[in-house]
């Protein structure tokens, strides 16, 4: 990166690409070319910057200026003002809502202040399609160090000492897992990277693979060296075309550089990586199901033991870790155990990446030290709740997790605390909810997901969840009874205790945690036949207050079914027999004349 005077980094993550960031890259290139600046300024499409809310993001180094919500039309101005005249283009800088001032660099943006980036260290800094840029940031130094200076046992011990735990959700100590697999004797062992991110509302692993694929490749090779495997497999969702493409490019480059293949760095160690495609089955996040899927079968889990570390892919010892776990490994080798374990809480070391989404102001991908509180994440990094609404709950752990409430806001986030609070770390989805969200509906939403994704192998999960869903459906339609609520609790606990795999064992969590934390809301649905949040269609009605209605006709024009009638400048009226309760009129009304009753 030495030949250029300036670099323009454009976010090439999925969120920003959805807002046409690729066209921004092209526009920069052609603009620079016409001004004959393309020898001095380089344009790079990077991985995700994380601040998806304000995308597309453009960052200019060396001065670290951070532009938000950039459009193709802004490219010319940035080149003229910033690149040529050397002064930041004010209108595209981040506007701090608290101080009402403009901020030029990430160090002064609240969204970034409390973040510590380890797994995401290269996302948004390097061109993921260029191995040299990874190497320039200490890439493959860890592999070199392990191969030349350490025995496999020493390297495994280092991972063990770091306290790194599985970031896929379970939190099993990574070094211990490696050690167990290393101890097995076999002619062939496998390193598997689980990139089958199925949690709805989570995109951490995908962002790492899109933004920094080499860190995963390097870590897999180190793992291969530690456990004595010469073969690695990445099991990735076929729905992630960009991540797959970047991974393929990275594998090719690593092979060219002799960092994969035979006799890596002259050490005599052989290792190569293949890609296997998932096909959309949440249960395949479970190790044994994943392995069956890689073998070409239905992704159904099997009973453990035997654990994959003893008998996994094709019956051989297999070590399965998730993408984010792997992404942490090279840094631990480079910066040392002491550095890594100084970050985080006592039993959970390092950081965790979360996909922060829902009703917060700053949606995005964040990486925070373990032990940070939910309050800091939601209110400092997330910028608080949208539209000045009231915080109600935060859901972690996806369909396997639970909803936490205001009373948990000051709980430090780590594996053990989240479980104690009735949720779990999970893979890193973090969905914030406000007063308008009905917790019974949320529980039902997650259960619908589980129902669809249950593989059907064991009875408690297949039939039990179906029954739970029926009861929830009844409650949201105002037909539930007090006994139904009790039945949810009893049946939920039975499913937890008797299901075969992690999916079933955790599937009732969203219900059980909302029952614990929002029991009143269940009661309101059952006893009063009311939905306090106004979400359950069968329990609400939209009404126009004739005194407040100005007859602006906005609701009339927007109603998709023509249920609203009324003359201009006269109060309007909703025909309840036609109304489909879509809520459009309620959102459109500028005079607060429409209420949910």
């Amino acid at each position, binding site marked *: 990166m030495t030949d250029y005077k300036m670099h323009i980094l454009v976010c090439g993550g999925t969120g920003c690409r959805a807002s046409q960031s690729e066209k921004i890259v092209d526009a920069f290139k052609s603009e620079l070319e016409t001004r004959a600046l393309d020898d001095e300024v380089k344009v790079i499409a990077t991985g995700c910057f994380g601040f998806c809310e304000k995308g597309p993001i453009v960052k200019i180094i060396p001065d670290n200026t951070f532009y938000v919500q950039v459009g193709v039309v802004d490219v010319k101005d940035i080149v003229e003002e910033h690149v040529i005249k050397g002064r930041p283009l004010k209108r595209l800088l981040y506007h701090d809502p608290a101080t009402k001032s403009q901020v030029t660099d990430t160090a002064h943006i609240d969204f970034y202040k409390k973040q510590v980036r380890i797994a995401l260290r290269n996302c948004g800094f390097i061109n993921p399609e260029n191995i040299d840029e990874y190497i320039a940031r200490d890439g493959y130094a860890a592999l070199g160090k392990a191969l030349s200076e350490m025995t496999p046992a020493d390297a495994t011990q280092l991972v063990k000492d770091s306290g790194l735990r599985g970031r896929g959700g379970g939190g099993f100590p990574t070094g211990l897992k490696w050690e167990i697999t290393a101890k097995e004797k076999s002619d062939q062992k496998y390193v598997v990277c689980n990139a089958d991110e199925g949690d*709805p*509302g989570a995109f951490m692993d995908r962002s790492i693979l899109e933004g920094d694929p080499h860190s995963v490749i390097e870590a897999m090779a180190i793992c291969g060296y530690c456990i004595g495997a010469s073969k690695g497999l990445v099991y990735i969702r076929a*729905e992630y075309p960009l991540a797959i493409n970047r991974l393929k490019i990275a594998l090719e480059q690593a092979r060219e550089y002799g960092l994969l293949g035979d006799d890596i760095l002259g050490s005599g160690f052989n290792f190569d990586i293949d890609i296997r495609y998932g*096909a959309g*089955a949440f249960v395949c996040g479970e190790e044994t199901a994943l392995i069956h899927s890689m073998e*070409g079968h239905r992704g159904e889990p099997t009973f453990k033991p035997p654990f994959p570390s003893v008998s996994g892919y094709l019956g051989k010892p297999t070590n399965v870790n998730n993408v984010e776990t792997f992404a942490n490994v090279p840094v631990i080798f480079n910066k040392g155990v002491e550095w890594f374990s100084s970050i985080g809480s006592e039993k959970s070391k390092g950081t965790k990446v979360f*996909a922060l*989404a829902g009703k917060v102001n700053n949606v995005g991908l964040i990486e925070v030290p373990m032990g940070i509180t939910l309050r800091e994440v939601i209110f400092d990094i997330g910028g608080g709740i949208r539209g000045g609404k009231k915080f109600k709950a935060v859901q972690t752990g996806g369909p396997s997790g639970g909803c936490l409430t205001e009373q948990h806001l000051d709980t430090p986030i780590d594996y053990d605390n989240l479980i104690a609070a009735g949720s779990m770390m999970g893979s890193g989805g973090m969905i914030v909810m406000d007063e308008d969200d009905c917790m019974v509906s949320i529980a039902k939403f997650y259960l619908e997901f589980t129902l669809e994704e249950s593989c059907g192998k064991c009875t408690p999960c297949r039939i039990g969840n179906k029954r739970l869903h029926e009861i929830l459906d009844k409650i949201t339609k105002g037909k539930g009874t007090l006994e139904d609520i009790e039945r949810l609790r009893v049946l939920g606990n039975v499913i937890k205790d008797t299901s075969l795999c992690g999916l079933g064992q955790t599937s009732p969590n969203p219900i059980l945690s909302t029952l614990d934390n929002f029991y009143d809301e269940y009661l309101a649905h059952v006893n009063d036949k009311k939905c306090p949040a106004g979400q359950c269609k069968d329990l609400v009605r939209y009404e126009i207050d004739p005194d407040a209605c100005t007859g602006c006709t906005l609701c009339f024009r*927007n109603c998709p079914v023509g249920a609203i009638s009324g003359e201009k400048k006269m109060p309007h009226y909703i025909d309840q027999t036609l109304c489909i309760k879509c809520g459009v009129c309620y*959102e459109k009304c500028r005079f607060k004349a429409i209420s949910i009753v």
Partner: protein
Amino acid sequence: MPKVKLSEYATSTVKEVCASFNNKEGELINVLHQVQQKLGYLPAEVQELVAKELNMSAAKVYGVVTFYSFFTMVPQGENPISICMGTACYVRGGEQVLDEFKRQLKIDVGETTADGKFSLSALRCVGACGLAPVVLVGEKVHGRVAPTDVRKILSECKDGCLT
């Protein structure tokens, strides 16, 4: 489902794909991915041929095809519409948007309109949560969609703006 007579092209495609994976049973999922990519969907006849080529039972192929949501046995519409039903999109109104698509197209999730123009599916998390709720038409992403935008999105497709 009605019997489909496989075209010459389909037959040779399936055979080629299977051969490229050395007709190995363990490569079934990779084979299905490639065949679907080339033919658009996996009708029963294709599955039977895959089974024959890989020397395994058609029941097993069918078992795998129906297990994974990515595989489809019905042809997709000219404009495949996917509504993100990830949690982030759900809490920002994804369901209302889905309802409106269902209402306007008069089809349910997983179905294709009679004229073959549109098919509707729900998917889980596109990874563009900053733009929630998100709708995909083909590869094009529409962000921050409200039920009132549905008509416009559909009319854009009909006008052939879709690439």
